[in-house]
């Protein structure tokens, strides 16, 4: 086959085959791939399409999707439809950032290194922690790494985790735990909040870490102080908090309640929802734990002329250095996503972020009250919530969902697959992007379906 975009043609293939003493591709495969695993016959494919035809077909297929950008989205659970300022796209699309791969050679990568340094600094300011790394894959992998780090630091194996932590994050932790021999104890929620008393009963001198999320998966605001105090029931127990970065515009930062490792999903900071990724995780800890941190840290230094510069400062835990004794499996970061996150935080500033958080809080609570007043719907959990809240319907959620999607709304996450006894319960997320009109129409829609 000859094709304008394929560098090999019939003549060059023949030449290559001849040089190894074969006459056809068939013969090449025949000599190396066992008969029983070889595909026989012709592939059942349609005739090739022209570029124009292929584009038309793919556009048709793509148009069947209902992207979040064309819907009014109330989907949350860690990834949410926050507004992304136009400047961010411009910055991340610069080829100096966009095309570089693992750009850690200080001599040629000052821009990237400086940005990662700024990202780390911003995450420290946001969380109130001492040190932050260059980013993780996403919130779930950040938590799994946090748990491994706690275990490696304390040389203990027991992890006590509240079931109000994102169920997918807990699943990721379980996956890692299975292979590393950690004992993960999940504490059932109590009316949508961490059951502090039950959690306290599980914390002992073998406990490496206590894990909770704030605001929790149900959107409820936890009181972090009594949870943090549970550390005293252990010997070396660390506290890991999973936090929504936007919520830190209004909620108490982990650094204020003696948290050891603060981490979470960074998507809300200037990154599109884009079908679930690529996103980024952020990961911060106390200075005392810096040597145990997974991933890499960029530091500020001086060059030979005494000018400010940036270098990769720490990456000791990774498998290419520690090999089989590595305590972490992460050998990269999400530099472009972290760039977007840093650009977002820089554009927003302290006041801007507080404003975004206030909008989320007020709009979500406006809708929560409206839905609570609707016939056929209840809001089962009491107490303050941030940008998400749980709704219980008196009829099948799947049919509500179907009808709402037809009306242009993504109504939220069905909780039934994740929690027992939550058959027609769903999680609604309201960001600053939602308008009052959208909230009113959504509530009216729910009433009518």
């Amino acid at each position, binding site marked *: 086959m000859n094709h304008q975009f394929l560098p090999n043609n019939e003549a060059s293939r023949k030449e290559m085959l001849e040089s190894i003493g074969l006459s056809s591709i068939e013969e090449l495969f025949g000599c190396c791939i066992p008969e029983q695993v070889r595909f026989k016959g012709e592939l059942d494919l349609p005739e090739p399409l022209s570029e124009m035809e292929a584009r038309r077909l793919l556009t048709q297929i793509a148009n069947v999707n209902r992207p979040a950008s064309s819907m009014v989205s109330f989907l949350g659970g860690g990834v949410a439809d926050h507004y992304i300022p136009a400047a961010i796209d411009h910055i991340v699309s610069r080829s100096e950032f966009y095309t570089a791969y693992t750009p850690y050679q200080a001599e040629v990568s000052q821009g990237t290194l400086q940005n990662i340094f700024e990202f780390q600094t911003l995450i420290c300011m946001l969380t109130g922690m001492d040190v932050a790394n260059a980013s993780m894959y996403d919130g779930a992998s950040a938590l799994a790494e946090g748990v491994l780090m706690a275990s490696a630091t304390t040389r203990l194996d027991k992890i006590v985790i509240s079931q109000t932590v994102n169920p997918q994050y807990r699943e990721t932790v379980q996956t890692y735990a299975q292979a590393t021999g950690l004992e993960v104890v999940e504490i059932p929620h109590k009316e949508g909040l961490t059951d502090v008393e039950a959690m306290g009963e599980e914390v002992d001198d073998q406990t490496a870490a206590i894990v909770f999320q704030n605001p929790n998966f149900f959107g409820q605001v936890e009181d972090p102080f009594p949870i943090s105090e549970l550390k005293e029931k252990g010997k070396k127990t660390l506290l890991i908090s999973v936090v929504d970065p936007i919520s830190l515009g209004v909620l108490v930062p982990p650094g204020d309640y003696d948290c050891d490792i603060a981490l979470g999903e960074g998507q809300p900071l200037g990154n599109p929802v884009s079908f679930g990724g690529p996103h980024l995780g952020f990961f911060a800890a106390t200075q005392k734990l810096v*040597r145990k941190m997974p991933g890499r840290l960029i530091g500020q230094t001086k060059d030979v002329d005494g000018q400010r510069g940036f270098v990769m400062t720490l990456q*000791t*835990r990774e498998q290419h250095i*520690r090999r089989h004794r590595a305590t972490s499996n992460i050998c990269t970061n999400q530099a472009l996503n972290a760039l977007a996150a840093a650009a977002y935080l820089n554009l927003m500033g302290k006041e801007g972020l507080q404003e975004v958080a206030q909008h989320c809080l007020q709009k979500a609570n406006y809708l929560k009250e409206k839905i609570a007043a609707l016939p056929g719907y209840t809001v089962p959990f009491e107490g303050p919530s941030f940008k998400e809240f749980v709704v219980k319907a008196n009829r099948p959620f799947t049919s509500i969902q179907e009808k709402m999607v037809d009306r242009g709304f993504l109504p939220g996450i069905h909780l039934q697959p994740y929690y027992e006894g939550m058959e027609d319960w769903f999680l609604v997320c309201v960001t600053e992007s939602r308008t009052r009109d959208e909230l009113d129409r959504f509530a009216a829609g729910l009433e009518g379906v």
Partner: protein
Amino acid sequence: MYPEELKYTEDHEWVRVEDGKAYVGVTHYAQEQLGDIVFVELPDLDEEFEMGDTFGVVESVKTVSDLFMPLSGKVVEINEDLEDSPEVVNEDPHGAGWIIAIELSDKSQLDQLMDSETYKKTLE
């Protein structure tokens, strides 16, 4: 190069018994193999370990290596100077570069360690 009053392990650690305590460090050979040491992670006081357990970590510019307990016992002293000056391990591995001191739980384990001559032979 390898003092006769010390005992040695196959993992290139040394032990010096002094005042009923056993001081532990890494050998000249180990520090040479590691290269410039930039960080020594120390255990906590009173931590107890079995012979062969990992009790700490040394990081050099080119690698990271675990420290193994040459004997079972409880940590009664740690060399805090190494937190700020890890290079002492390179400069004086068998002296000022000691890492921890332990209270032995089983003195008979000392017999399992090598003397200076035997250790030197393993390096050849």
